[in-house]
């Protein structure tokens, strides 16, 4: 199944989250993909042999593209109807109204919302343009979605400023009615990385994960599904979550920006580009370019530490955007030690050794 993230408004966003990695780019100028580029995108994807194609409509804040734009998406999906289009949208939910919710419900979009834990932790980072916290606006949007039987999953970003409030963040999300939760360790890829005050260290991420695991055990509710715990518990069963951060498959994900330029995963910024859907005619042409082949080779190169690691096949050196150059022969996953130690921790807990 092919999957594409489409930044239909580029980096244009109505929020100014303190840690946003897009702060290096222009978040103020209203940029929207033209209908010509949108149709070119569908023509490009139509060249794929796969029947099912997943498209994640992204930004910036994708809802800033407007309802007419999303209606055009549906029109084009009907035009190229030999494919099964699986749509998702990742939104900050501040612009959701009943019309949006009805649209997503009618057209079977899955909706992901960004909420950073409790009202307090969320409002410390996820601010609007006049630096006000957005929690109440986000929850209002989520409630509207639920009125239309859409129960969004949550991506919660964890930073150096919030990791110590693990319990508060989890309880905040649960109290707001969320049961499908993904936690993202914030690792700064913006330009001022050396002065970064948000990026989590290995130890901080491990501390957060352990607290979340223990709280989740105590809550003892099988309906609470936490991506990071499921991923680690899968290792105990010698299984790997089909999540790109565990599978070393980030070359399966492509970002298309509003102008049609093609990039790897949005976490990697814009340093590497694979051309444009305006000049590449087919997907085969994209993946056979030397720039793509070389990039793929570079991310598959494993550091020495990985070669003998017990989690090698369950980890694949983690997320490419979280790797750092060192003397191991290839960049090493920055959260390597926390991944190993968290595996040992839950394995010991399950086997009564802790």
């Amino acid at each position, binding site marked *: 199944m092919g999957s594409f993230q489409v930044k239909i408004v580029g980096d244009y966003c109505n929020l100014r989250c303190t840690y946003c990695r897009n702060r290096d780019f222009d978040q103020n100028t209203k940029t929207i993909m033209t209908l010509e580029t949108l149709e070119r995108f569908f023509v490009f994807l139509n060249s794929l042999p796969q029947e099912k194609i997943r498209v994640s409509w992204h930004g910036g804040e994708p809802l800033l593209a407007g309802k007419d734009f999303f209606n055009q998406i549906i029109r084009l999906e009907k035009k190229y109807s030999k494919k099964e289009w699986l749509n998702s949208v990742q939104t900050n939910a501040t612009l959701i109204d009943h019309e949006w919710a009805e649209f997503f419900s009618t057209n079977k979009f899955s909706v992901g919302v960004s909420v950073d834990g409790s009202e307090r932790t969320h409002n410390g980072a996820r601010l609007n343009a006049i630096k006000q916290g957005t929690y109440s606006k986000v929850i209002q949007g989520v409630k509207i979605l639920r009125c239309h039987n859409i129960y969004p999953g949550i991506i919660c970003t964890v930073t150096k400023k919030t990791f110590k409030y693990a319990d508060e963040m989890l309880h905040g999300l649960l109290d707001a009615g969320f049961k499908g939760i993904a936690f993202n360790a914030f690792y700064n890829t913006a330009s001022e990385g050396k002065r970064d005050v948000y990026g989590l260290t290995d130890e901080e991420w491990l501390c957060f994960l352990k607290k979340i695991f223990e709280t989740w055990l105590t809550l003892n509710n099988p309906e609470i599904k936490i991506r990071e715990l499921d991923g680690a*518990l899968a290792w105990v069963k010698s299984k790997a*979550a089909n999540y790109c951060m565990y599978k070393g498959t980030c070359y*399966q994900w492509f970002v298309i920006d509003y102008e049609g330029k093609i990039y790897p995963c949005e976490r990697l910024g814009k340093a590497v580009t694979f051309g444009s859907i305006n000049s590449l005619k087919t997907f085969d042409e994209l993946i056979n370019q030397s720039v793509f082949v070389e990039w793929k080779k570079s991310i598959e190169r494993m550091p020495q530490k990985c070669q003998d690691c017990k989690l090698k096949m369950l980890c694949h050196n983690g997320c490419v955007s979280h790797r750092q150059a060192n003397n191991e022969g290839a960049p090493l996953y920055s959260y390597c030690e926390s991944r190993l130690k968290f595996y040992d921790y839950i394995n010991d807990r399950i086997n*009564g050794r802790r």
Partner: protein
Amino acid sequence: MKNGSLQGNTNENQSSISSNAALQGAFARIEAGSDFSSINNQSSNWSDSLWSNSYSDDYYVDN
């Protein structure tokens, strides 16, 4: 690699954890769900893996 197991351990602490409903629910998801695969089924072949059932950042909890 060493694998944890919920079986064959009489430790009281382990017993209380192994009966944890959240943990059992997670293991049931892992055993049954298409979001997880056996390491033996992971192909190193580029063309096989290109469109494998992998998901990126925002897919797991959306469905």
